[in-house]
């Protein structure tokens, strides 16, 4: 071993050797031992190894070596690209020392970089630039930076698995080819977490160029198990505490931010834990990282924000709270533990329910067997083509279509794009983003502005504030594309775990009230859920059928809990759905289809069934899905056997066509369509959609390449047509059966405790209470309309039933809104203007109403926008109790809906 290390050191540039000595670098990890000699020869490679084993150094040492051996002074010599700014910062602080020692200039450039630093980078380019894919896109726009890019000899893409699955990565593959246009060929190095198909990551990075894979598997160092954490939150946090206490440092991963917050809150009294997730400000996150690294805290509760390789020092133990849903995710999260060389990574899943336990068992087994999911890149994404053509047109002013085709054909993601590129060009021309002449694409005035607003393939959108008019406070924010495709007056949607109904849309506010009975397809806008893959869900079905729990790595309590549920099912004469059986159950709200298909397959089959049922029976059908069940909300006359009949009539080859029809009307499709239309320059990033029917506008994309891309992406990312076809084929060939039954405990799990479905709490009562509270608390001005000499500010709740003027003793007292105070004071003048006279009449009416109806009038008049006229209407309904408040709500709603026309 020693000689191998010495050999390795000897192969390096003397200066680098010296610096390694200085740093006390006398041991190399496996990945470093294998990667450095490979990369030093200048060949392209993908490095795969667990986080924290020095992957960064294994890529950078050989690059540094080459930079020292063959110095080069023209522009940026090396680019280090990561998907996140926080990773950039982390990388910069790690590399600063190396740069200083080796005499190489290293710098960061991303969204947060100051103008001053940017200027410095332009006048005096660093040797190594750390950046993001989006900042790289921006660099192509500047003449000077383009010149610096022409010096690039090495490109390292960190966390490439994270980029490879999305359009950001697809765009990056084209950007790499654009660098090659400026700089000629360069060495490409990708750093990746464990994936099922490393060769594909290689193609993704290098296209047709040769690429070597250097892989140190994570699985052989993993030690994973499943523990049942009980059903009470208190018990669950106690168990987490126990785990934290028994290790020096622990990471606790949760699937959502809200769960991370809840656990963090419960552990707060300990004082040695921190929370880390994407909604927290950068300062808070950096503090948490520093505290953990310094050993000031012994546990960090985090979400996927900690998945990528930010260096936070030693981690002894990783806890995953609830099933991680994907094998690769579990491997990556737990792979962070026990870092240093030769140690195993200990990790534990705390499961909390039936689905959760079984799913965790399956995922742990697959992780131990080293079976992570495959990464799937987007192939021929038309919006990325459009975006990069516009970028090329702006970069060069004009460019031959043949050249464009050649550049794209070098990227793996577009190597067979063929006629698609010309189709995209024609569509862009129709939206006046570019023009063509003699087989050349020529930029137009708009293109530069378009590009500066569309550097990123991440949907970067305006936010609208959701404003609850009942509680009169903001609830959260919604993305613009969601607003335009779904939100209209009367629409219902889910946010913050509650159902809301839209009353009105302002310029940037959406006025809502809590909705009572939410029906139909409810769009939810809380972070996209991680889907459970088909293969995992099917194995869960198999485990339900074989009940071979002993073959899985779970504690006794998990197994007892799972067996109890299955035996209760038997006792209730319920039928358990498995990988060979679909069970359709009648519930009050509709029909539950128990299908172990995973999120995407269930979503696909659910949507196909819903459109067929809706066409056959002329009713609308609501749909909710999770990994193990589909709930179809149906009218009472449709029962499980009706749905079963439709399910059995499906043909595998019809799925795709039906799904296209089904998706076309959904908010999801419209949202995608808008996103893609923006990339084609048809809709500006800051477009104003008021006064037009977005639905009709979107019909203009029928049969265009924009529409095709929207479907391609939906089928690729949100649906699983192939899996759904497989299920239907299994049904046809009777390898899978169906049964109908009453609602079972497993079927109901998704309905009442589900992880994906939000159950609205008792809404109506809550609304009334909140209105009562608000009105009681509202400021009013009591004003004597008899002597006009007395006024007094108070709150509605404190006003007596019959207010009296303390000055003149009259009972003719008006109850005014604070903003009317001035108008009242003005009444004391001798001569009143017409407006003032009108105000007087209104206040007099108000006082008379208080005189005759007492407190009820006072409360009604305090409603938002309720004047004497609408107050009179409310009082005339003679409603009492809660109904009285409902009338006030109605009047307020009316005000909200119509006030914009008053001006």
């Amino acid at each position, binding site marked *: 071993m020693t000689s191998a290390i010495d050999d390795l050191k000897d192969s390096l540039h003397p200066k680098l050797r010296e610096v390694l000595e200085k740093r006390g670098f006398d041991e190399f990890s496996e990945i470093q031992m294998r990667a450095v000699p490979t990369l030093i020869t200048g060949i392209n490679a993908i490095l795969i190894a667990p986080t924290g084993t020095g992957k960064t150094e294994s890529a950078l040492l050989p690059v540094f070596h080459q930079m020292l051996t063959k110095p080069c002074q023209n522009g940026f010599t090396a680019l280090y690209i990561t998907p996140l700014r926080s990773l950039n910062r982390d990388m910069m602080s790690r590399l600063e020392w190396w740069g200083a020692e080796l005499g190489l200039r290293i710098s960061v450039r991303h969204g947060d970089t100051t103008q001053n630093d940017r200027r410095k980078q332009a006048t005096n380019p660093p040797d190594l630039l750390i950046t993001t894919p989006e900042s790289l896109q921006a660099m192509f726009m500047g003449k000077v930076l383009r010149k610096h890019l022409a010096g690039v000899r090495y490109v390292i893409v960190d966390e490439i698995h994270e980029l490879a699955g999305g359009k950001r990565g697809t765009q990056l593959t084209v950007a790499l080819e654009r660098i090659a246009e400026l700089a000629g060929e360069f060495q490409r190095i990708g750093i990746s977490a464990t994936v099922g198909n490393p060769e594909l990551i290689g193609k993704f990075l290098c296209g047709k160029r040769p690429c070597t894979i250097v892989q140190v598997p994570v699985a052989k160092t993993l030690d994973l198990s499943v523990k049942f954490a009980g059903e009470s939150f208190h018990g669950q946090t106690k168990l987490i505490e126990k785990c934290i206490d028994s290790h020096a440092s622990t990471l606790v991963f949760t699937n959502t931010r809200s769960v991370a917050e809840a656990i963090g809150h419960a552990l707060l009294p300990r004082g040695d834990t921190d929370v880390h997730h994407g909604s927290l400000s950068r300062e808070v996150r950096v503090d948490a990282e520093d505290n953990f690294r310094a050993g000031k805290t012994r546990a960090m509760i985090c979400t996927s924000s900690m998945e990528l390789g930010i260096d936070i020092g030693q981690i002894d133990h990783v806890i995953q709270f609830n099933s991680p849903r994907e094998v690769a995710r579990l491997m990556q999260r737990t792979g962070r533990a026990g870092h240093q060389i030769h140690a195993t990574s200990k990790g534990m899943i705390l499961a909390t329910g039936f689905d959760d336990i079984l799913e965790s068992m399956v995922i742990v087994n697959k992780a131990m067997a080293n079976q992570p999911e495959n990464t799937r890149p987007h192939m021929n994404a038309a919006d990325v083509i459009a975006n990069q053509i516009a970028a090329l047109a702006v970069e060069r002013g004009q460019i031959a279509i043949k050249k464009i085709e050649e550049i794209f054909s070098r990227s793996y993601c577009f190597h067979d794009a063929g006629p698609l590129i010309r189709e995209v060009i024609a569509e862009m021309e129709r939206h006046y983003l570019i023009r063509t002449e003699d087989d050349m694409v020529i930029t137009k005035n708009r293109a530069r502005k378009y590009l500066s607003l569309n550097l990123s393939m991440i949907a970067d959108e305006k936010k609208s504030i959701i404003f609850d008019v009942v509680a009169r406070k903001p609830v959260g924010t919604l993305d613009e594309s969601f607003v335009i495709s779904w939100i209209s007056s*009367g629409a219902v949607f889910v946010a913050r775990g509650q159902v809301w109904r839209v009353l009105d849309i302002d310029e940037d506010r959406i006025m809502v009230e809590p909705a009572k009975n939410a029906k139909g397809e409810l769009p939810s806008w809380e972070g996209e859920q991680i889907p459970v893959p088909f293969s995992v869900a099917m194995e869960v079905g198999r485990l339900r059928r074989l009940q071979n729990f002993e073959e899985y790595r779970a504690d006794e309590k998990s197994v007892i809990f799972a067996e109890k549920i299955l035996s209760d099912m038997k006792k209730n004469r319920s039928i358990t759905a498995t990988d060979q059986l679909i069970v359709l159950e009648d519930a009050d709200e509709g029909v539950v289809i128990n299908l172990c298909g995973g999120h995407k397959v269930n979503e696909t089959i659910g949507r196909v069934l819903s459109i067929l049922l809706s066409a056959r029976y002329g009713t609308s059908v609501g749909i909710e899905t999770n990994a193990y069940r589909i709930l179809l909300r149906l009218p009472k006359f449709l029962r499980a056997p009706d749905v079963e009949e439709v399910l059995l009539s499906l043909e595998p080859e019809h799925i795709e066509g039906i799904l296209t029809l089904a998706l076309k009307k959904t908010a999801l499709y419209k949202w995608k369509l808008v996103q893609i239309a923006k990339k084609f320059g048809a809709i500006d990033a800051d477009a104003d959609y008021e006064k*037009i*029917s977005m639905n*009709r506008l979107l019909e*203009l994309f029928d049969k265009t390449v924009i529409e095709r891309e929207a479907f391609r992406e939906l089928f690729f990312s949100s649906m699983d047509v192939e899996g759904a076809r497989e299920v239907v084929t299994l049904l046809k060939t009777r390898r899978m059966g169906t049964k109908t039954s009453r609602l079972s405990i497993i079927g109901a799990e998704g309905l009442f405790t589900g992880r994906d479905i939000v159950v609205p709490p008792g809404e109506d009562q809550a609304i009334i209470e909140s209105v009562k509270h608000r009105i009681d608390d509202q400021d009013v001005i009591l004003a004597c309309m008899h002597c006009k000499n007395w006024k007094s500010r108070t709150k509605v709740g404190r006003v007596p039933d019959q207010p009296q003027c303390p000055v003149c003793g009259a009972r003719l007292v008006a109850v005014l809104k604070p903003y009317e105070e001035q108008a009242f004071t003005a009444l004391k003048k001798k001569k009143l203007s017409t407006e003032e006279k009108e105000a007087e009449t209104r206040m007099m009416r108000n006082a008379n109403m208080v005189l005759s109806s007492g407190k009820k009038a006072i409360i009604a008049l305090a409603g938002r926008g309720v004047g004497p006229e609408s107050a009179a209407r409310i009082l005339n309904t003679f409603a009492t109790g809660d109904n009285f408040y409902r009338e006030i709500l109605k009047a307020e709603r009316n005000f909200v809906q119509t006030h914009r*026309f008053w001006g």
Partner: protein
Amino acid sequence: MQPEFYADGPAVLIERQERTLVIADPHFGVEADLHRHGLHFQSATDARMSRLLTIIEQSDPDYLIVLGDLKHMIPYVTYQERIEMPEILRKIRKETNFRLAPGNHDTGLEHYLGKDELLPMNGALIDGTGYFHGHTIPAQELMGHLILCGHHHPVVNIYDDVGCSLRGTPGYLLAEIDPSAWGPVPANPTRILFVPAFYELAGGMDVRLIPGNNISPVANAIQNETAEVFLKDGTYVAPFTELRPDPMERT
């Protein structure tokens, strides 16, 4: 008189002594304005025109009356409109007589129209039926008659047990207006037919929200008890007061 409905317009034909084809709010030239709002699309004037010409051919009218907002941009005439408008008018005139009840978007169109073609702002009574755009108080001579108007872009939402089964489809609202709203009470009731927009990108206003709305004097003067709702093909939906309410609405 039974109006004849052309769903593909939407358009409606009124026949008494003469056959009068009526459309509302085509908003020709809207694309220039969409451009300014960040929506970049090619002119749909040709498609809109061919829709109109097909209906003219099918219905063979003596007149085409456009209930205002023939053009889109306020308060001037855009390049697109300058280029397209003469061609639009030429094609219509070739087929039938043309009348425009000017709307709030029709500023600057006078130059393009013949003297007879432009009706007064407050509407005109033609062959026993009143026509006006709908943003003003209708002229006195229209009172006591059936009046057709545009401006409101009415659409209908239909709800069923589970949710909204039809959203934002163009529809007609027919309603009597308060006889005492303007001037002397006429002998017959004044009924207004709110015609949906011919302009297919129109956002539209749910018919449930039109009566009592301050968007126009006529909307404000509607008497709900007599109001009725039709779809664009003339299908009678329901009396206004019996429209199935939005299920989310509290009772």
